[in-house]
C-alpha cells in the first residue's frame, strides 16, 4: 500500500518542461516564405505521444498546410515521414490544426509546408519533447478493468476445475469421486495460480511504472554560491542524464553539460527575480568557467530572497532552464556591462510602465480576459515623453525585445522573444544553419516602436511580465501584471 501511495504521488507530480519551467507549449511567430504564421505546438506529456499542432495564418492567402516531424540534427533531420494535412477550420479559414506522433524524447522540429496563392513555402519550428508526467487511471476505467479482471479470474478458475473434473469423462458418465477430488484440487491450484498471477502482475506493473517515472523529465536544480566580491558561482545540475541502454535502435538525446551552444551570443541567460514582491529583476549572462560551472559578478542588489532561472541550450538545440532559490545579502556590485541589464525598483503596471527619460511602455492589452492555454500576441508600444513612438530603439541582443513571463508563485517561467518561446539557437538549427550565426536576420518589427511576443499562459493564475528593450544605448526593463483565467 505504501508503495502504491508512493506511485500515486509520483503520478501527481507537477508538469515539467525542458524549455522554460512548467510552460511546455511552444508559441512561434514566423514566416513560411511569404506567409506569416502563428504556430502553437503542444508537446505530448508522455513520449512516445501525440503533439497537437495549431497554425494560424495571419493573412487569408494560405490554402493548404501540411505538417511533419523531424529530428533537429543528424540523419533523422534529413529523412522525412509522409506529411499530414492540417485540417482547416470550417469556422475560421485561417486556422489549421493537426497532430503528430513524437516517438522519442529530445530535440525535434515540426516542418510546416504552406501552399497558397504565392506558391509553396516551409517553416521549421523547434519542439523539445520530454515525458513530464504519467496519467493516473480514471476511476471509471479502473472499475471496468477490475470488473473484467474479476470475471476473467473467476472464469479461469472455473475452466481449470472443469478441465480436471469433467473433461476426461465420457458422454453422460457420472462424476466419480476421484474426479470430484481432482476438481477440488483444481479449485485450490487455480485459486493459487490466479492470486500468484495478480501479485506478480502487480509487481511487474509497479516496476514498469517506476521505470517510466525515472524517465520523466526532472527540472534541474543548479547550486548557487556567493563568493567574496559578489561573485556568484552556479554549478549546474543534470538529473536527466542517462546512460545508453544495451540494445536499442534509437536513443533519446543524452543530456550533457559540456555541449552548450550560445543563444544570442551567450551560453547562459540568467534571470534573477526577488520574491515575493518581484520588484527586482536582472537578466545577466554568466561566463562558463568549465562545463557545468558558471560565474557572474552580481550588480548592486538589495538583500533578499531571489529565484534564479538559467536558460541554456544543448548542441542538439534542446533547451533547458536550471532553477534555484537563494537568500542573498546586499551586494555593492559591479556596474552592469555588455548585455546585462535589470533594476531593483520596478513598479508592476497594469497597462503603462514608466521608463527612464520620461519614456513609457504601454501594453496594448485588449479588454477581454486572458484565457490559459490560448495563444496571444502580447504587444507593447514604447513612447517618448511626448507620447510619440520612440525613435531611438535599438536591437537588444539582435532582437527588438526580450520578455519573461513568470507566475507570482515562481513555478511558471518562460523566456520569450518576438519570434516566440523557442530558443533562437534552436531556430537556427531547425533552419539548417549554424546556431552560432548572428540573429540579425531574425529581427522582428525592427523599425517600429512596438514589440510583440507570442505566448500563452499554461494555467490560470497571477503572472508578471518583464519586458526589456534597448533605446539610446541603454536597456530598459518594464514590469506588468497579468492574470490568466
Amino acid at each position: 500500500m505504501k508503495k502504491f501511495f508512493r506511485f500515486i504521488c509520483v503520478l501527481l507530480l507537477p508538469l515539467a518542461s525542458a524549455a522554460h519551467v512548467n510552460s511546455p507549449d511552444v508559441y512561434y511567430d514566423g514566416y513560411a516564405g511569404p506567409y506569416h504564421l502563428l504556430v502553437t505546438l503542444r508537446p505530448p506529456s508522455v513520449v512516445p505521444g501525440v503533439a497537437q499542432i495549431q497554425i494560424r495564418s495571419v493573412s487569408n492567402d494560405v490554402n493548404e498546410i501540411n505538417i511533419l516531424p523531424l529530428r533537429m540534427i543528424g540523419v533523422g533531420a534529413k529523412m522525412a515521414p509522409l506529411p499530414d494535412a492540417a485540417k482547416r477550420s470550417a469556422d475560421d479559414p485561417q486556422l489549421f490544426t493537426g497532430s503528430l506522433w513524437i516517438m522519442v524524447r529530445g530535440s525535434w522540429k515540426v516542418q510546416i509546408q504552406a501552399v497558397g496563392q504565392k506558391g509553396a513555402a516551409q517553416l521549421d519550428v523547434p519542439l523539445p519533447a520530454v515525458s513530464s508526467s504519467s496519467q493516473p487511471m480514471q476511476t471509471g476505467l479502473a472499475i471496468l478493468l477490475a470488473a473484467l479482471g474479476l470475471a476473467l479470474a473467476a472464469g479461469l478458475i472455473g475452466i481449470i476445475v472443469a478441465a480436471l473434473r469433467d473433461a476426461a469423462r465420457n458422454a453422460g458418465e457420472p462424476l466419480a469421486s476421484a474426479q470430484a477430488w481432482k476438481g477440488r484440487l483444481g479449485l485450490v491450484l487455480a485459486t493459487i495460480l490466479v492470486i500468484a498471477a495478480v501479485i506478480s502482475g502487480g509487481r511487474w506493473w509497479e516496476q514498469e511504472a517506476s521505470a517510466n517515472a525515472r524517465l520523466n523529465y526532472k527540472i534541474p536544480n543548479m547550486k548557487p554560491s556567493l563568493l567574496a566580491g559578489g561573485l556568484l558561482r552556479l554549478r549546474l545540475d543534470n538529473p536527466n542524464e542517462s546512460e545508453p541502454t544495451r540494445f536499442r535502435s534509437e536513443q533519446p538525446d543524452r543530456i550533457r553539460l559540456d555541449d552548450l551552444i550560445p543563444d544570442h551570443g551567450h551560453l547562459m541567460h540568467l534571470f534573477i527575480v526577488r520574491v515575493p514582491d518581484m520588484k527586482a529583476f536582472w537578466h545577466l549572462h554568466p561566463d562558463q568557467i568549465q562545463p557545468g560551472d558558471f560565474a557572474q559578478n552580481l550588480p548592486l542588489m538589495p538583500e533578499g530572497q531571489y529565484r534564479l532561472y538559467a536558460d541554456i541550450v544543448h548542441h542538439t538545440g534542446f533547451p533547458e532552464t536550471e532553477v534555484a532559490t537563494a537568500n542573498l545579502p546586499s551586494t555593492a556590485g559591479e556596474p552592469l556591462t555588455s548585455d546585462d541589464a535589470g533594476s531593483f525598483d520596478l513598479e508592476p503596471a497594469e497597462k503603462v510602465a514608466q521608463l527612464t527619460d520620461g519614456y513609457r511602455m504601454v501594453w496594448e492589452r485588449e479588454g477581454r480576459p486572458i484565457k490559459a492555454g490560448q495563444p496571444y500576441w502580447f504587444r507593447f508600444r514604447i513612447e517618448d515623453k511626448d507620447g510619440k513612438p520612440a525613435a531611438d530603439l535599438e536591437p537588444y541582443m539582435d532582437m527588438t525585445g526580450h520578455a519573461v513571463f513568470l507566475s507570482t508563485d515562481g513555478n511558471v517561467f518562460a523566456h520569450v522573444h518576438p519570434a516566440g518561446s523557442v530558443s533562437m539557437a534552436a531556430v537556427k538549427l531547425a533552419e539548417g544553419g549554424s546556431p552560432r550565426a548572428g540573429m540579425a536576420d531574425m529581427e522582428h518589427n525592427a523599425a517600429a516602436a512596438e514589440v510583440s511576443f507570442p505566448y500563452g499562459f499554461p494555467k490560470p493564475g497571477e503572472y508578471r511580465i518583464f519586458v526589456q528593450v534597448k533605446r539610446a544605448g541603454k536597456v530598459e526593463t518594464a514590469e506588468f501584471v497579468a492574470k490568466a483565467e
Partner: protein
Amino acid sequence: MSTISATAHIDTASVRSHVQRIPWLVWANVIASVCIATGLYWDISWHETIGRDSFWTPAHLVIQFGALLAAFGSAWVIMQTTFGGDTEARRNSVSVLGFRGPLGAFIAAWGGGAMLTSAPFDNWWHEAYGLDVKIISPPHILLAVGIAGIMWGGAILAVSYLNRAEGDERKSLERILLFVGGFIIVQGMTLKLEYTNRVLLHSAISYMVMSIGTLLLLEALARASGHRWARTIMTGVYSAFVLILMWVLPLFPAQPKLGPVYQNITHMVPLPFPMLLIVPAFFLDLMWPIFKDAPKWQQALFGGVSFTTILIAMEWPFATFLMSPAARNPLFATVDFPYFALPTSPTVRHVFVAWERSRGEFWQNMALAFLFAVASMWIGIFWGNWLKKVRR
C-alpha cells in the same frame, strides 16, 4: 468391483458419442487462429514500416475479426448447450460457473474476454507511459494470454472431438489440430521476436528464450494428435507461414508516417527469416519410435537436450550466413530494416551483438536453455497425455 463393472457397462452401452462430422466451431477456431497470427505479423510489419497506429489499421481489424469469431462462436455454442435442448451436446459438455459447453469453447471464450480486456488496458497504458516501444508489457501479455486462450481453445476443442472420432473424421481432426498447433508456435515465436533477432543468434539469450515453452506445446500436441510426423508438420506450418508473409509483404508499397526516419522505406518491411525449429522437430519425430517407450524423465532429458543441441548447431552457422553478403537479398529478408533502425545499429551493419557481458553469463544462459527445454518437454509429456483423455 462394482464401480469397474458400471464403467464397463457405460462404455459397452455406447454412451460415448462418436463424431460424425467436424463441428463448425472447430473450423471457426481454425480461421480465428489464422486471422490472429496473420494480423499479429502484419501488425509488427506495419509498426516497422508505416508506424502510425490506430484501432482501425487493417492488421488490427484482422486480429479483431479472429478474436470476435472465436469468442462469439464459442459463446454461442456455450449458450446453445446451456439453454438449448440438445441432450447429446450437454452429455459431452463440462460445467463452468453454471454454464455448459465444450471445454475448448470455454477456453476460447475466455481468451476472447482477455483480449477484450487488454484493449482498454493497453490504450490507457499508451496514454500513461507512451506508445509501445517493446512487445513485452503487461497489457500485451494479457493480450497474448487471450490469443493463446483462443488458439489453445481451438486446439482442445479439436482434441476433444479427435478423441471421440474414427476414420476420416479422425484424420481430418488430426490435420486440423496440427495446423492450429503450427499457429500456436507462430504466436509463441512472435512473442519472442525481440530475442530472436539475428544479431542475437550468437548469444545464449536467444536459445534460452526459444527453449521456454516451445517443446511443451510441440510435445503436448504431437502426443495428442498421435501423428507420426506431428512435430515436423507443426514447425513446418510455422516455417511456411513466416516465409510466405516474409516474401509477400514486401510486394506492397508503403512509406513511414512516423519519424524519425532513418531508412529509405518504399515497401512493407518483412519480419526475419523463421527460426530453424523444423530441423530438431524432424529429428524428434524420427527418433520417436525409439524413445516413446522410455521412462518419462528419460524422454524429457533426451528430447530437451537433443532439441536444443540441434537447434544451436543449425541456427548458429545459419545466423553467420544471414549476416554475410550472400544472404543480402529478399529471399532471406536481410536487406529491409524498420524505418527507425539507425544506420549505426547492429542489424543494419550486419554484426552480432554479445548480449551476455561475460563468458560466465553466456554459459549460464546456455545451461538454462537446456534446462528450460528439458522442463518444457517434461511438462509437455504430461500435458499431452492429459490431452489424449479429453473428451468433452
